């Protein structure tokens, strides 16, 4: 039914991460920071959500950063320049909105979450909001988007778990130091994007400092338009659909234990698919 979405550029960012620039004029025009697309890259493929890492309405392009973790993301990673992504739909979800009265927003990006963070902090920067970012990776070779983020942040700290580059430790360790420095200053906000344990840890930390925080949730979903209800999350004791109500939610109200559990629903099948 679809002719596919052409891959104009592919760039390897780390041994397991690629950046793709895709031709998708309508999506590029409609996209806002923090939104996502759903893609399918194989004739028998799954539909998976991927955050929009950049968009250019003039060029008609959308950029996504994909880390190879499961069967579908590996198939995606194997695509080449000039090839096509079979299906791509979006932009989906609600764009990021900073809280009112935010004077300083600290973006925290874990792993390839840094890619999703980029359009959010760039747009804040363009609106004149002061932004800082803390990004983290296992080790030096897995650090991404330092250059891009550096250009739009007043302050950028890169952390590595093994200390092979930048700050040695987790993004939360680094964020804690920064929150200590900023203690007493009002108008500070945090937005965190990354693996679930990292976002959960950030939420726990910022709650202790009473710093308003949003996280970007990406639960298992199929259609991305509210039809399947697979992406339901509990926020402030209310059931929300991450695809249409999110992806951003108040980190201090999210039931992370439920998110983690629901994220593992297909762990066995995913392992079987990787082996297949």
């Amino acid at each position, binding site marked *: *039914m*679809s002719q596919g979405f052409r891959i104009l550029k592919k760039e390897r960012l780390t041994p397991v991460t690629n950046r793709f620039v895709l031709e998708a004029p*309508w*999506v590029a025009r*409609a996209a806002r920071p923090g939104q996502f697309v759903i893609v*399918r890259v*194989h004739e*028998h*493929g*799954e*539909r998976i959500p991927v955050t929009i890492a950049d968009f250019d309405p003039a060029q008609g392009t959308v950029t996504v950063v994909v880390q190879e973790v499961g*069967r*579908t993301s590996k198939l995606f990673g194997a695509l080449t320049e000039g090839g096509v992504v*079979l*299906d*791509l*739909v*979006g*932009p*989906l979800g609600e764009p990021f909105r900073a809280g009112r009265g935010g004077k300083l927003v600290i973006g925290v990006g874990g792993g390839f979450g840094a890619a999703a963070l980029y359009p959010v902090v760039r747009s804040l920067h363009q609106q004149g909001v002061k932004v800082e970012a803390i990004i983290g990776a296992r080790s030096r070779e897995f650090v991404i988007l330092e250059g891009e983020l550096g250009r739009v942040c007043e302050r950028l700290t890169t952390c590595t778990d093994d200390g092979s580059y930048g700050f040695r430790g987790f993004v939360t360790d680094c964020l804690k130091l920064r929150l200590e420095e900023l203690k007493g200053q009002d108008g500070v906000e945090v937005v965190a994007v990354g693996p679930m344990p990292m976002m959960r840890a950030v939420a726990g930390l910022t709650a202790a400092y009473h710093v308003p925080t949003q996280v970007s949730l990406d639960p298992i979903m*199929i*259609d991305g*338009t*509210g*039809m*399947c*209800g*697979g992406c*339901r999350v*509990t926020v402030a004791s209310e*059931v929300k659909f991450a695809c*249409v109500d999110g992806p951003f939610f108040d980190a201090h109200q999210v039931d992370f234990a*439920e998110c983690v*559990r*629901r994220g*593992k*629903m*297909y762990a066995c*099948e*995913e392992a*079987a*698919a990787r082996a*297949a």
Partner: protein
Amino acid sequence: MPLKSVSKTAMPQQPPRERARTFDEVNLGYTEARARYEASRCLQCQEPACEAGCPVGVPIRAFLKEAADGLFQEAFGLVKGAHPLPAMCGRVCPQESQCEKLCHMAARFEPVAIGHLERFVADWERAHREAKTTPPAKRSGPAVAIVGSGPAGLTAAGELAKLGHRVTVFEALHEPGGVLRYGIPEFRLPKAVLDDEIEQLKALGVEIVCNVVIGKTIGLDQLMGEMGFRAVFIGTGAGLPRFLSIPGENLNGVYSANEFLTRINLMKAYRFPVAHTPLKVGSRVAVVGAGNTAMDAARSALRMGASEVRVVYRRSEQEMSAREEEYHHAIEEGVLFQWLTNPARVVGSNEGCVTGLECQPMRLGEPDESGRPRPEPSGEPPFIVPIDTLVVAIGTRPNRLLTKGGGLATASWGGLIVSDDSLETSRPGVFAGGDAVTGAATVILAAGAGRRAAAAIHAKF
């Protein structure tokens, strides 16, 4: 006058035990001889009451006459003239509460199997159609955008194309068909039938664009502004699942029927890992609700390998809304039915997986606002049914993605408000029909609305 059978001619079908493990179609279809015989059971009444029961006015008496005479092409033409989806409606319409209910034969015997015959003439035509090599028709009339490719949208598209309009259908998913694709299983509506319908629309010059969510990818203003569409028809259906709002509903192993069926029908989870989308179905499954979707989910669960599947419904057998045939097929295949049973809580393990469904026994009280007896707790103590998968099939509501910012008047429950005769919304040039307007209803009502809207659009533009 030849003797007529008091009973319907039986529909040949796969044996229940075999079919309950495969997604192949259950009903195998009439032979020509059976079809002619069954059509000859029609009394050719002076005043065909059956036709009053058809929401789209199929000339039933005339098409049955042609079919009885073996003039199947002519019979097909008569049905197709009334609505464009005979192969589908012959399979999924609730005939027992429409045409067949009013059949004069039904007063004393069994009604004529109008649904089976509608299906037969459509299948006969598909099998005997000569391959056309002509390129898609070129249209030059006013451009019309159709939002959603379910029964309402496809019908409106076909009618408008025939009237000379340039028609573009936008679909959010990666394949067209809407609920016919993601909702109704292969064993009830083979996707080859749907694919054929879509190919025919393309041959009429209809353009189908998948992967576009109107309201997200492209707005109504853009459609009617820079893109130059003179009119828009919204047939976005009722795709938002309702949940029970009981404790434990977010446990692993609880699905909306939409998710459960979409994984199977659209994503082909029954072919995992060849198809990449999985679906976890435990050995004991409960399905809450008793409509067609609940039957589809229960029967699909059996086919996915479940050993015990039960339908749990707070009312009784009399109040259930499923088609008679689906209910009978479900019973034949071994689905259990637990009437007057209201789910109160989903019970889970320490790991957060479903292990049971706590239920409250109910009884029927005074009629409620729907006119049906209101179910109320019977006073008997609650009990727990051990299960490992729960499918919630208690209905759907219209999706608000498009109406949220589109300046369209909606009812409090989310349905679009339209003018009774033209189906035009509060925004001039924007029409709507099907479940998006009525709430969850039937394929034939949606098709009927698509047809009426097409006529109204044609009259105005």
